[in-house]
């Protein structure tokens, strides 16, 4: 968190500094710096946390389901399976499991549906119940579920790699715009100073910086949208509202 705050501060300072370099206007520089910092602290951070939560929970859920099915198909016992998998749990899952220590292992597995908040896990608990009370081959009955979870995992991985490349492309294109401004400042020399002294100049450059901020907010809004992977997970605010 501290590391991220430092990065937000650094990025805002970078854009504030660039604006000051281009316009020599301290008041507008403070406005631009504050706008960027405010965006990163209030909007970006919230979306980033939610995004990380969905990725980590979805991956953990898929890995839990797959490992559990394979292990239980060998040893046929929920307790042994749960205990053997517990060493690979994440910190937050361990914390969740510790908070329900009074339950038996089967109840724990069922209760984790509230932790993962994923339809795949709900389907898994139904199949597990069927296996516990009616018997049969769990590998056969969960064949489609494993297939679906693999598809979700693949879609997620595919989206993550492509979306990161697209955001990089976005920054690359905009950096060319800012490079034009810097080159203009460097090579126009005295003429640039005269243009810079014109009343309209700082406001129009500020307008450019704000358009960039809006486009950045829009692309990150799209980047952080993982509703195609999991519509179930609700952030804390939505949970409270519900």
């Amino acid at each position: 968190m501290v590391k991220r705050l430092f990065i937000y501060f650094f990025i805002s300072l970078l854009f504030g500094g660039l604006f000051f370099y281009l316009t020599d206007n301290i008041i507008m520089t403070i406005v631009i710096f504050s706008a960027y910092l405010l965006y990163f602290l209030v909007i970006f951070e919230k979306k980033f946390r939610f995004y990380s939560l969905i990725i980590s929970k979805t991956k953990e859920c898929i890995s839990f389901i797959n490992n559990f099915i394979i292990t239980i198909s060998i040893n046929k016992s929920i307790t042994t399976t749960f205990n053997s998998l517990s060493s690979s749990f994440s910190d937050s899952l361990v914390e969740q499991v510790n908070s329900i220590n009074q339950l038996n292992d089967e109840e724990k597995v069922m209760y984790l549906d509230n932790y993962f908040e994923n339809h795949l896990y709900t389907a898994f608990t139904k199949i597990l119940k069927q296996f516990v009370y009616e018997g049969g081959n769990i590998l056969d009955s969960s064949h489609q579920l494993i297939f679906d979870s693999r598809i979700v995992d693949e879609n997620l991985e595919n989206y993550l790699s492509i979306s990161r490349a697209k955001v990089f492309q976005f920054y690359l294109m905009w950096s060319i715009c800012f490079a034009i401004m810097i080159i203009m400042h460097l090579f126009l020399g005295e003429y640039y100073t005269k243009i810079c002294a014109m009343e309209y100049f700082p406001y129009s450059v500020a307008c450019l910086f704000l358009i960039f901020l809006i486009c950045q907010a829009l692309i990150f809004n799209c980047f952080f949208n993982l509703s195609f992977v999991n519509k179930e997970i609700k952030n804390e605010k939505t949970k409270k509202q519900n």
Partner: protein
Amino acid sequence: MKKLKNKIENLGLNYKKEMIMFFIGFSLIVLLAIVSLMVLKNALSSLLAFFLLVVFTFVYFYRYSVMEDSKKTKNIDNFIEYFSYFRIYIFNGESVYSALEKTLEFSDYQIKGYVEGLISEINDDKTIAPFMRFSNFFNNKLIEEIMISIYEMIENGNDSNYINQFTSLFEDFKLRTNKENEAKRLGKFDKYTMSSLVGSGIIMIILVYGIINLIGTML
């Protein structure tokens, strides 16, 4: 007008309320145009107001088409999500009726209503009609085919051939929809990347305006 009214009502919106909102927005722009014309006494401002009116009217009514599209996409996504779980239950030997009932908890509130309607209808009507009525909600030929294959599963007592037919149709539909959705998502990224062209345009305007002013002062 009747078509628009139906469109708005199908989206679950109140036609009267929407029209009142439109006229409020429209009147505000007209008022703004009159005030600016009286204060500025400039023909350009009335031209600008006219342009604003056209844009406002277009955006206001175009958003219903966008909302309609997004509702259709959401409905299809819900269908895929629900029938993915249905398919798991069918593979585990459940009958169509019991799989439909047991997977209700995985459904979104909207599709839940449709499925509940289907379950109650297939109790009374043993023909293909309830399945066709269900597929009509989605207005998609492939969904219609999937529903026919589900009906055939009932008719033939979960014969593995019919289960495979349903699975292959469903997987095909799911794959196609996933690809379409992915293309839409990635298309959005491209739109935002293109915004850098707007940035370049602004820089050009800033520069040209500055240079022209500079030349003006020199002359």
